[in-house]
């Protein structure tokens, strides 16, 4: 808004009047009043014991639950990203069997609720009481008790990771297809094999499209892990629920859990912002880690 007076050709100055945005003030006041009332209803609620919230916020089991939630989120996201790239590459393969399998994978895991998948993995022992890894036609191999392998933690990681892979594969596929075909031709003309072309030329460029959504995937994964409580994965939500089942302080513990989820989301959002800024202008610095540029231009990359 202009505050400097307007000077006309003869040098005379005329001040600019101030505008009062009455509508804005009114809308802000109403919104604030509603928000304050809601906050009051919760904060001043006689049935809510804030002392308990304070007591449990740094409770040992809550903290260990936070840690397990972070672990599951990171591992499941990593599994989902790696598997997602593989599924996407299979999906784009010329081999009709590979691409058919990938299509089926994506359809299956997107078509069934993640809750169902979690319970499925957790109860895998009903189908396969033991898991055997054996070299065919020999006696060499290893055997596990399925119930010992499929703990809440591993079934959470598998269920969430396999599910994310199905969604992520579509993002990767879009990223790969967005890379101009001329890049592929130039790579082949230089004498690269299809695999090398994918790794050295196509994927690094596809990252520009693939990277931004991964931050969102991770943030949503942090919260999706709360579903793990159906398989007792010792994550934040599982532990909070076990505490409130014992002491019946349901609301207080839900608040405790929410505070932690909000904090984790805030940190993840901050990191995501940095990742995106890095990728917005300098699309592919991330691949420098093992990429050609880091090896050729160590100084420029530093």
């Amino acid at each position, binding site marked *: 808004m202009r505050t400097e007076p307007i000077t006309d050709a003869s040098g005379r100055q005329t001040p600019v009047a101030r505008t009062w945005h009455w509508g804005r003030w009114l809308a802000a006041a109403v919104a604030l009043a509603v928000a304050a009332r809601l906050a009051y209803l919760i904060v001043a609620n006689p049935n809510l014991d804030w002392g308990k919230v304070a007591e449990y916020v740094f409770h040992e089991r809550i903290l260990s639950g936070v840690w397990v939630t972070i672990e599951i989120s990171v591992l499941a996201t990593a599994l989902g990203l790696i598997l997602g790239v593989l599924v996407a590459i299979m999906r784009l393969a010329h081999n009709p069997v590979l691409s058919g399998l990938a299509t089926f994978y994506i359809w299956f895991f997107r078509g069934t609720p993640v809750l169902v998948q979690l319970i499925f993995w957790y109860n895998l022992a009903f189908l396969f009481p033991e898991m055997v890894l054996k070299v065919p036609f020999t006696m060499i191999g290893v055997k596990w008790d399925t119930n010992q392998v499929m703990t809440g933690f591993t079934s959470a990681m598998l269920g969430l990771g396999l599910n994310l892979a199905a969604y992520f594969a579509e993002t990767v596929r879009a990223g790969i297809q967005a890379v*101009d075909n*001329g*890049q592929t*031709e*130039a*790579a*082949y*003309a*230089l*004498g*690269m*094999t*299809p695999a*090398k072309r994918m790794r*050295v*030329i196509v994927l*690094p*460029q596809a990252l520009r499209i693939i990277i931004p959504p991964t931050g969102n995937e991770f943030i949503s994964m942090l919260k999706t892990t709360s579903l793990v409580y159906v398989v007792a994965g010792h994550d934040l939500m599982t532990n909070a629920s076990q505490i409130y089942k014992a002491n019946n302080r349901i609301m207080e513990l839900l608040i405790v859990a929410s505070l932690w989820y909000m904090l984790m989301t805030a940190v993840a959002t901050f990191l995501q912002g940095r990742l995106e800024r890095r990728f917005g202008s300098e*699309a*592919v610095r991330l*691949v420098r880690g093992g990429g*050609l*540029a880091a*090896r*050729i*231009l160590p100084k*420029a990359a530093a």
Partner: protein
Amino acid sequence: MNAPGEQPDKQVVRASGVRMSYGEVQVLNGVDLTVAAGEVSCVIGPSGSGKSTFLRCINGLEPVLGGSLRVLDQEVGHTLRGGRYHPWTPKEFAAFRRNIGMVFQRFNLFAHHSALENVACGPVHVLGTPADRARVLAMEHLERVGLADHAHKRPHQLSGGQQQRVAIARALAMNPALMLFDEPTSALDPELVDEVLEVMKGLAAEGMTMVVVTHEIAFAREVGDWLTFFADGVVVERGRPRELLANPSHERTRAFLSSVLHPKERQESQ
């Protein structure tokens, strides 16, 4: 690599009756063409006549479906073993293409790499040259095309002419025995054409074997050892550039040349 019983060939490219089609559409209808070592062979012809397709067959980017195409003493796409030709694996195609440089109409520089990295990319990732050595060599190649000062720029920070010169340097970094150019100046603003043609002239003078698809008739006349006129997927005629341009023996060639030459000559006479 010569299979037993095969003679080494002084012809770098020897095409006889090469046929190729995209599905139902027949694109090459029996191309006969030879390129000897050290020669510059220019190819002209109307749009859609199959020039690019033929070039892409030479380095195996498109499959030859009929006839025989021998390049650098190999039947492109097949190896003779036990009395039969066995199709190449992707690895064998890759190994074959290392010896052939290709320059595209639209440059196709790797967008995520600087000019220097583009040039070093082939040696590092295909030949396994150590990075330090590859960087030094890449710099030499950039100097040669006059772009040492732009080594650290990304393709989008370079003009079309500069991008095309980087693309040439990238191909040269592989020490190819044969260079293919597919209308290297067609996507350039007129004032940028010469800087690219100059680099190509330099290459020709050093004895590089080149196949150049181009609309630059003046370049073909000055630099080409041979000029080939393509139409409808066959070679209509081939000759020494000056003779063919002055005295085309086919009506097709004459019509094409007058459509390409006359707008330009009108300009030149003004």
